Each structure stands twice: as structure tokens, then as C-alpha cells.
């Protein structure tokens, strides 16, 4: 059902408490600075945040080894999210799936349209071009053991202009595992649409954090009846 992907504004612990109140189904914690800064996960912070969350948590950011992943799971995280290191070495995903089970492995693909118009996967918080096609990569990562795949549109991210429906449609028809669409949610209607093209879940950041033209910070979340209506 719903899937939260907060780019937090302020202390993550406070944001978690608010999402608890709003009864978000799942929380994704993404440390987007980790890999660009060559840093691994901040285990103590993760443990603390997980302890505050009254819903399942997925964590991603700087996971480089199976040991990192195992340690994070032992902190109470249900799923680990791998991006850069999965794309740079898809066999890493196989090792993770064998050790932790594919249900705990989420592969995240950041996608940007190239100048020529084709979709390409980027890594390292969008800084590095790989030249790889998201459909091929999604298929490969599924084969290696990813239990879920996140497709994040770098172009749409933060714009609240709607998801990239073509991108989501093309990837969802290529893979069998659940697909989570991210990047561009501007309204609940957007979420309805992206589910209509095959997304099993939608991630939203700006939509639930920023409110109104001036993007003042107000964390909100749809009520259960609305979500039920969109997803079922």
C-alpha cells in the first residue's frame, strides 16, 4: 500500500513521530549523503530512528557489504535499499538475497533522461552516469534477487508535477517484483495514476512535506480511507 519516502526537513526523529501519528504503512530512511561522501551507514542513528518508528522501516544509504546489511537488519530494519552499489555490481544483490532473503532486498534506480531523450540510470546521488538502461538493469537486479525495485525519476523529483508515467509503465511491464514509483508526486491523483500504470506503491517526499506555493514545511499524509480507495 502506501510507502513513505521522507526527505526530512529537520530532525529525523521528529519526522518519524509525525509519520507515526499519520499511520504511514512503511517508512523509508534514505541517507543520500553516504555514498557520495564515501561513508557507510550511521548505525547508531538508524537504531535510534527505528526505535522511534511504529511501523516497518526500510533503510538505504551507503550499504557496501553483506555485513553492513546484516547489521542494519539486526537493528530492527525490515528491508535494506541498495542503489549505487547494486548498480555498480549487481552480483552484490545476489549475495544480499542469499544471506537475508529477497524479501528484505530493495534495489533503487535513479533515472534521468539523457540529452538524446533516452532514460539512463545514474548512481552516487545522481552524479554519475552509467549509460545503463533502467529496464535492462531492473530485470537484471530482479534476477539477482531484488525483492522490490524503486524507480526514482531524477527529473521529476521535487517538482510535484506528477510521476514519469512512461518510465514507470515500461519498467513495471518488464519485471515481476513490486515496483515503487518515486519522483514527482504532486497530488493524490498523481499517485492514483502511477498505480494505474503498474506501480505497486508510490513514494512521496515533497508532497507530504511541503505545503502550498511557498513550500512551507507541513508534514501530512492521506487518511486510511483515501489510501484504500487509491490502492484497492
Amino acid at each position, binding site marked *: 500500500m502506501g510507502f513513505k519516502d521522507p526527505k526530512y526537513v529537520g530532525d529525523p526523529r521528529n519526522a518519524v513521530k509525525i509519520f507515526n501519528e499519520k*499511520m504511514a504503512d512503511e517508512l523509508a530512511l534514505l541517507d543520500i549523503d553516504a555514498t557520495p561522501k564515501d561513508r557507510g551507514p550511521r548505525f547508531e542513528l538508524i*537504531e535510534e530512528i527505528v*526505535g522511534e*518508528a*511504529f511501523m516497518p522501516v526500510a533503510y538505504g544509504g551507503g550499504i557496501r557489504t553483506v555485513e553492513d546489511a546484516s547489521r542494519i537488519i539486526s537493528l*530492527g530494519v*525490515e528491508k535494506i535499499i541498495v542503489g549505487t552499489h547494486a548498480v555498480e555490481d549487481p552480483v552484490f544483490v545476489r549475495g544480499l538475497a542469499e544471506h537475508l532473503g529477497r524479501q528484505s532486498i530493495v534495489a533503487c534506480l535513479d533515472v534521468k533522461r539523457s540529452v538524446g531523450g533516452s532514460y539512463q540510470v545514474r548512481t552516487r546521488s545522481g552524479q554519475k552516469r552509467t549509460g545503463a538502461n533502467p529496464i535492462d538493469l531492473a530485470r537484471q537486479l530482479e534476477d539477482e534477487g531484488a525483492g522490490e525495485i524503486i524507480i526514482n525519476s531524477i527529473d521529476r523529483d521535487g517538482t510535484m508535477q506528477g510521476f514519469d508515467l512512461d518510465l514507470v509503465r515500461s519498467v513495471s511491464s518488464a519485471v515481476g517484483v513490486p515496483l515503487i514509483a518515486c519522483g514527482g508526486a504532486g497530488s493524490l491523483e498523481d499517485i492514483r495514476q502511477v498505480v494505474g500504470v503498474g506501480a505497486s506503491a508510490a513514494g512521496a517526499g515533497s508532497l507530504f512535506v511541503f505545503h502550498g506555493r511557498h513550500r512551507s514545511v507541513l508534514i501530512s499524509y492521506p487518511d486510511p480511507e483515501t489510501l484504500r480507495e487509491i490502492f484497492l
Partner: protein
Amino acid sequence: MGATLTIAVIDYGMGNVGSMRNMLAKIGVETVVTSDPEVIMGASKVILPGVGAFDNAMRRLEQLDLVAALDEKVREQGTPFLGVCLGMQLLTMRSEEGELPGLGWIDAETRLFDLSDHPELPIPHMGWNTVQDTGRGPLLVGQADGARFYFVHSYRVQARSEDDVLGVTNYGGEFASVIGHGNIWGVQFHPEKSHRYGMTLLNTFATTS
């Protein structure tokens, strides 16, 4: 609820007890997270959480002298007890997951899901699901319509007597998601990851058991 009500949440190194502690605090229950048998003996009620493998859990409980303490506190003295997830499975006689015997407080066995009729359903059962109250016990009373709980498990409990099954959930067929016998209860899902619904359940355990 008396001012001296304290719930002991057993920390035996099998999982992050933070959410459980914080959720209980949120509903205003005095909680102590402990592996000290003496502290447990002084508590009003006991919660045994658990994530991980059956044998590891039983071994840890033995190593920490908790099996004897819990037997005395829960079985002899009749202290209200709630086992959560693996903690519920430990209540049974044995598990297909391991070799060691369980606590054996409820006449039941823990078995791997048999989903041969449903090849589309993966193991583990992971995600939100509903629980149907069988009406045989108080633990689910007060739940809102559509109450859902978060499950992550590959093994499920089969109780010998239907009287011990307080709630059932459907995953390729019905399985016991809430069990209970006397002062001892078990829930297969994670109330501490089931936000509002989990809080209601823990509150019911804290105030009515």
C-alpha cells in the same frame, strides 16, 4: 490501572526492543527493558519480543537463566504474559525451524507455512494483514474496523485445541495469529510496528489481562 503497574520487556538480544519500549511509553505504561531475572520477578506483567531463529532464542533464554525465572513468574505465579512474533512461537512445544524444545506453555507446534496450493505467495509472510477475532479471548477487543497488523514470519503456530486460538489470519489459508491460554498470550504480528492498532492491543494487554 494502578500506579505500580510495570511491564517487563525481556531483552535477550533477539531484536530491537526500542519500538516496543517507546510504544508502551506512548500509551502511558511504565516499562522496564531487562534481562535480569530479579527485575522480571518484580514486574506486574511480562512481554517477550523476538526476531530471529528459534534455537538461538531458546539458547539465549537458557544462558541468561530466564527460562527458570519465566517458568516461576508466569506459570507458577500466573503473571500475565505476552509473546510477540518469535516470542509467541517460543510458547509452543517445538518448532520445525529448530531442534531445541520451546517453553511448552501452550499445547501447540510451530511449523513452516505450507503454501503448495498457493505458489504465487512467497515465504515469509511479510506485510500488513488483518486478524479475525474468534471471540475466545479479550486481547482484540476494542480494535477499529479494518484493524491491520504487520507480519514477518516464515513459520506459524498450530494449536492442538481451538480454544487456544483467539485470532486467525489468512495467508494461503487460515493460521493462528493470536493464541492464548489462561494468563499467557501470543501474537504472531508486531504490535510495535502496527502503529495505532498495535497501541490498542498493547493497551488492552496492559489494562485488562
